[in-house]
């Protein structure tokens, strides 16, 4: 279990709130206020585990109960003997903060919530960067980061994913009956390690479940800020 620095990207948070383009001056300064409050209150934690991949009817990770089914994950881990799984969270304290602000100011609440989403993504990016430098030095190539619910990897693996990482004891993350991680602003992900160079797709609309109802796409942009 590691504690990490939190950083919020204001423009990214604005997008998470449903804002398009750049926020104006006063919106930006309010977002900055939300980000500052968020950074003071959130405690980020992560747990990371290196696993051997076993191949049978489906992929499984040695020493865990995690079974990974589906074309997407198989394609991702095709060349990989090993993988890293991790869970990152910005904690439960901000849940209490958001509940309090929901009573006072819905707009500021949405800002806090958006900051939390931005922060947890940055947390994952940070973990990925660390893993990259660590394992590339050992001669591995990393795949893209992939999470339960992406492509055809069912979100129902979340329970076993978190159990494999012992998230409830290590970082206080549990999975609800309907597969939601609590605290809400938590992310699980898997990255494959291969001895061969890997293709990278980055975030791409093609594989996304929401591509037909996406408001960003309706407005001619993607959720990660690219013009379509």
């Amino acid at each position: 279990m590691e504690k990490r620095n939190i950083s919020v990207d204001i423009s990214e948070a604005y997008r998470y709130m449903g804002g398009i383009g750049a926020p104006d001056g006063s919106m930006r300064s309010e977002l900055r206020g939300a980000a500052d409050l968020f950074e003071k209150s959130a405690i980020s934690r992560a747990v990371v585990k290196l696993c051997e991949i076993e191949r049978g009817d489906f992929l499984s990770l040695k020493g865990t109960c995690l079974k990974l089914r589906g074309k997407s994950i198989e394609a991702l881990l095709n060349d990989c003997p090993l993988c890293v799984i991790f869970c990152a969270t910005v904690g439960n304290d901000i849940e209490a903060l958001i509940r309090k602000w929901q009573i006072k100011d819905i707009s500021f609440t949405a800002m806090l919530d958006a900051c939390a989403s931005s922060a947890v993504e940055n947390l994952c990016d940070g973990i990925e960067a660390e893993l990259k430098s660590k394992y590339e030095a050992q001669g591995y190539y990393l795949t893209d980061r992939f999470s339960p619910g992406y492509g055809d990897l069912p979100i129902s693996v979340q329970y076993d994913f978190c159990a494999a990482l012992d998230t409830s004891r290590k970082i206080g993350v549990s999975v609800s009956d309907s597969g939601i991680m609590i605290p809400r602003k938590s992310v699980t992900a898997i990255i494959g390690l291969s001895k061969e160079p890997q293709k990278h797709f980055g975030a791409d609309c093609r594989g996304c479940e929401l591509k037909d109802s996406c408001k960003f796409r309706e407005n001619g942009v993607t959720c990660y800020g690219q013009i379509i």
Partner: protein
Amino acid sequence: MGTMLQRSGLPAGMPPELFALEHPEFLESIHRAYIEAGCQIVYANTFGANAHKLAGSGHSVIEVINASFAAAIRAASGRVPIALDIGPIGEMLEPSGTLSFEIAYDLFREMLVAGEKAGAGLVAFETFTDLAELRIAVLAAKENTSLPIFATMSFEETGRSFTGALAECFAETITGLGVDAIGVNCSMGPKKLMPIIRRIGAVSPLPLIVKANAGLPDARDGHYSINAEEFAAEMSECAEIGVKFIGGCCGTDPEYIKALHDIMLTNKCASRTVSESTRLCSITKFTTVDEVRIIGERINPTGKKRFQQALRENDFDYVLSQGVSQADAGADILDVNVGVPGLDEVLLMAKCVKGLQATVDLPLQIDSNAPAAIAAGLRAFCGKAIVNSVNGEREKLDKILPLVKKYGAAVVGLTMDEHGIPETAEERFEIAKRILAACETFGIPKRDIFIDCLTLTVSTSPDSANETLKAVRMVKEKLGLHTVLGVSNISFGLPNRELINSSFLTLAMENGLDLPIMNPNASSMTDAVAAFKLLSGFDSGCQSFVERFSNVMSTSTSASAAVGDISDAVSKGLKAEAKAITKDLLTTKTELEIINELLIPALDVVGERYEKGEVFLPQLMRSADAACEAFEVLKSSILSKGGSSVSKGKIIVATVKGDIHDIGKNIVKTILANYGYQLIDLGRDVSPETVVNTAIREEVRLVGLSALMTTTLPAMAETVKALRKSGHECKIMVGGAVLTAEYAEEIGADYYAKDAKKAVDIAKEVLG
């Protein structure tokens, strides 16, 4: 146990509790090894043997517990007692998660009853990180078994758990429930746990428990960092602290226990003393009453029309906003009174306490005349509460003090009885003595007894201030008890009440008042407290006072009322201006005129710009907040004139069962409320039955459902089905990021609300 099982190949994520069924002899051998190494209490392999974790394993709780105990009993052969080991359920409780108090309680009860039957000598609750969950478990144990109770939590190095529970709050709350030993387990090695157990030991007189990990695990191979000798050496600090029960958690094995046994049996456990100071707490906030502490009085329907209306309409947001604003204004404790004739006080108290503790971190004072309402409030509140109140009446003392004792609360005693309020200080003092004696027979310690010497109106009894002050002084000096007083009564019927109240408050504090019940939003009152603290030496370096008043200049300049129009204020999202302009408008227009001619058109303009893509959701929300401020002004104005509330029709909004995302729903709620609709917000994780029952009971014609996860869409379909089946006539609109128009049609909803603006259009169409 976990360490031993994992070493023999148990995969991470597999329930270890099944070992008793699949490999009983192996389990037995582990127990035997520990006993032979010197273990004096053995924990059965039942940590996760709850129905939630065993679901899908093909085995029942009773089966697993019986088998686990059979193995342990065979191994022990009567040499040592066996503890029923119970860990967290594995799912988070409300409000962060979806697990309810009742379901958690039942899950624990099932294990406890089975464990006691199977031969448990005690129950050991361990590795809890949610104090609220642990409290439910302890209540289940106390109410369903007669097992001695051990309770340990896991904390981070800061002394806070993952859910923010402070070590001191854990100590105070769980000790109050009447367990047999408390302490810490897991998360760290012995050295890092010592400061935390010291903190716990400073607050609780109970025997202490330390069950440490063998240091920290290596991220790669899971190997723990401290060996058996190092472990025992680090644990030896326990003797000096006075820890009675010691053991090892993750990473330890019989070798560690043997090393512990060898070192510790020669060390004497030091005796401990705990301070007698008065402590109150919530889950995350710990308050010592060692100086004046403010009790916020605003959550009380007496004489407050807006508040009564909120309770009648189940407008809990209003109640919570009163809590938040008092907390922000500097209240240390919140009084909670929800008694309104004709309403279900028990239900309201439970709901308000639950809502308040999810939103505000202050300890609460449960204020009611009805024992059932007090019980409901105490049961719902996790922390150390105050009960307001008992008095000299024997019947009242006998009914309420057992509740105070059971939940480990503090209690306020009013110096009056069946004969009324005595005139003289001496008579009130006598009643205080009676209350003290009664509390002592129930085992309630002095530090948890607060006396309210009662404030009478000085305009009708000129000596009343003197008598009250004298009584406060007598109680403080002769009985050594803390004192409570609601000061505002003193000035009833006189002009410049503020001046009288703050002066009386100062006099009272000088005479020993510790816990004034007052309005923290009245700056004259909180200023008086600040000045008193400064002058009586409670403000070191005068820091708080200086901070408080050097900020005053800058805030007052920014609060100037802007002259402008409401449309502008709403479209720019300027809250303070919207409020000020609305107040101004009321001098020339009626409330309804303002709503229909100015406010709603202003919102419509923003809505259209949003649709055209000229502004986006953030701006829409800002405007909604500004409109909300305006609306609150109008609501209060209508009420103060004796009118009934504005309502263009009722709308239910709810996030469906299993889903806890509600920001989107709340945005829609705020915007719809600004249009004058009456919103019934059922919250999140709402069952279909609740939606149906509320729709029928409140005669609601428009129901809005929200879901954010593909996994909770079935719950939405179920809710729609249940509504149709009930025969209740209404329209259903659905929304949420994963929803599409097709799916909405598929499940039989009438409308798909793709955003807040569409929700408004739908409401206009359905309700007008």
